[in-house]
């Protein structure tokens, strides 16, 4: 227990990195997911097919493998363009790209379903009132998409937080890696991995609460929803 108190500042430092990576992942991943969903719903085959192929493939292979490709592959590509050693791929950036690609792939399916849940008549009504395409999207589609998509996106967020742990394997100084360091120097691996898991659990529980609040707020216009 004394050891835990001693190493707590180190662990909290790692927790900050973990949260920073998770939040950045969601921001980039949401944008990517929206773009991919639009590509999937587009009338152009050259947009549609690659979007489906990419997201199906990314959803069918391990998250860890995606991370390894981006991290080691990124270095391989950079080394082939630039003289070796000029730039290195940072674990954070590689983790962000890999996790955002995964988040975006899953989110594109969530968004696609949500887009399709908005009746066409509403979009036509918007256009008939003289709304521009952007305004129709912003004021008619988006609020409804958001409501339908929140539960799915909430699950994806929970997954992303847990997936950040993988980035420790390629050297990110996150909660996982800091716990590993503490575990090694104190020879109390169980204690420190348990503390790490409890911190992850805490994030999960707080997220659950926030997602619940968001769901309620997004549904405030719906009849019969408390």
């Amino acid at each position, binding site marked *: 227990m004394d050891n835990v108190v001693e190493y707590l500042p180190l662990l909290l430092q790692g927790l900050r990195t973990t949260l920073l990576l998770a939040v950045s992942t969601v921001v980039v991943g949401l944008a990517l997911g929206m773009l991919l969903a639009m590509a999937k719903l587009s009338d152009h085959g050259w947009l549609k097919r690659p979007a489906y192929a990419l997201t199906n*493939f990314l959803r*069918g*292979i*391990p*998250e*860890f*493998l995606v991370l*390894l*490709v981006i991290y*080691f*592959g990124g*270095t*391989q*590509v950079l080394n082939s363009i630039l003289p070796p050693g000029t730039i290195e791929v940072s674990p954070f950036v590689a983790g962000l790209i890999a996790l955002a690609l995964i988040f975006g792939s899953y989110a594109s399916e969530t968004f696609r379903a949500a887009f399709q849940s908005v009746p066409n008549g509403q979009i036509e009504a918007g256009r008939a009132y003289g709304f521009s395409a952007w305004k129709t999207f912003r004021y008619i589609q988006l609020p409804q998409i958001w409501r339908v998509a929140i539960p799915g996106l909430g699950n994806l967020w*929970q997954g992303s937080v*847990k*997936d*950040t*742990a*993988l980035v*420790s*394997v390629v050297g990110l100084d996150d909660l*996982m890696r800091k*716990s*590993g360091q503490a*575990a090694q120097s104190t*020879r*109390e*691996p*169980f*204690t420190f*991995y*348990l503390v*790490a*898991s409890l911190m*992850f*659990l805490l994030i*999960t*529980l707080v997220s659950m609460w926030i997602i619940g609040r968001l769901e309620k707020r997004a549904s405030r216009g719906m009849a019969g929803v408390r």
Partner: protein
Amino acid sequence: MQVFLDIVREYGFDFLEGTWLTVQLVVISAILGFLLAVPVALARLSDSRIVAATASGYSLFFRGTPLLVQIFLVYFGLGQFGFVRDSILWPLLREPFVCALITFVLNTAAYSGEIVRGGILAVPRGEVEAARACGMSTAKTYRLVILPRAFSICLPAYSNEVIILMKGTSLASTITLLELTGMARLAASATYQPIQVFVIAGLIYYLMTLIIARIFRVLEARYNRYITDAR
């Protein structure tokens, strides 16, 4: 393209060996995990508060924390305790394969337990009442009516869980197991061609995803035939 062929020629056998270990991990964990999921689901639905709360806690822990932490807890963590090191099981618990299996089984059982619970709750009330009215005991109702029905309701969701499990087995490479990802990591550092090597591994994983989905489609057709045939 030539690079891909060279890698396959040089490391093809390693990839096959790694794939075989991945398949073993997935199949054993899926079977044991499913067997454990049924009691977990029943415990979650139990009238006894203590039993239900214990099962909820177990489920929350394994679903709310990263799989990687769980693997490390089992593989690196258990040795912290003297009684574990002194027990006759220690030679087993020191093995990365056994540790990976234990973690995957506990993890997938937590997720599958939720799926089975959902399936049990989705069995129409009337069928349960009918079974009771026919004079079946609670145990018999479960065995002959509720569980078989819940099983067929669960199948589609369960196929997703098995795919997630398969993807999770890639983490076994972090505790020295040379399954597909582990073999790929070795080959990547030996050839300095990580992109090509990992893409090959990715294609094998993707193929396994498709095969798992196919197997479950066949199972669904078989176990839901009383619904489809009626139409």
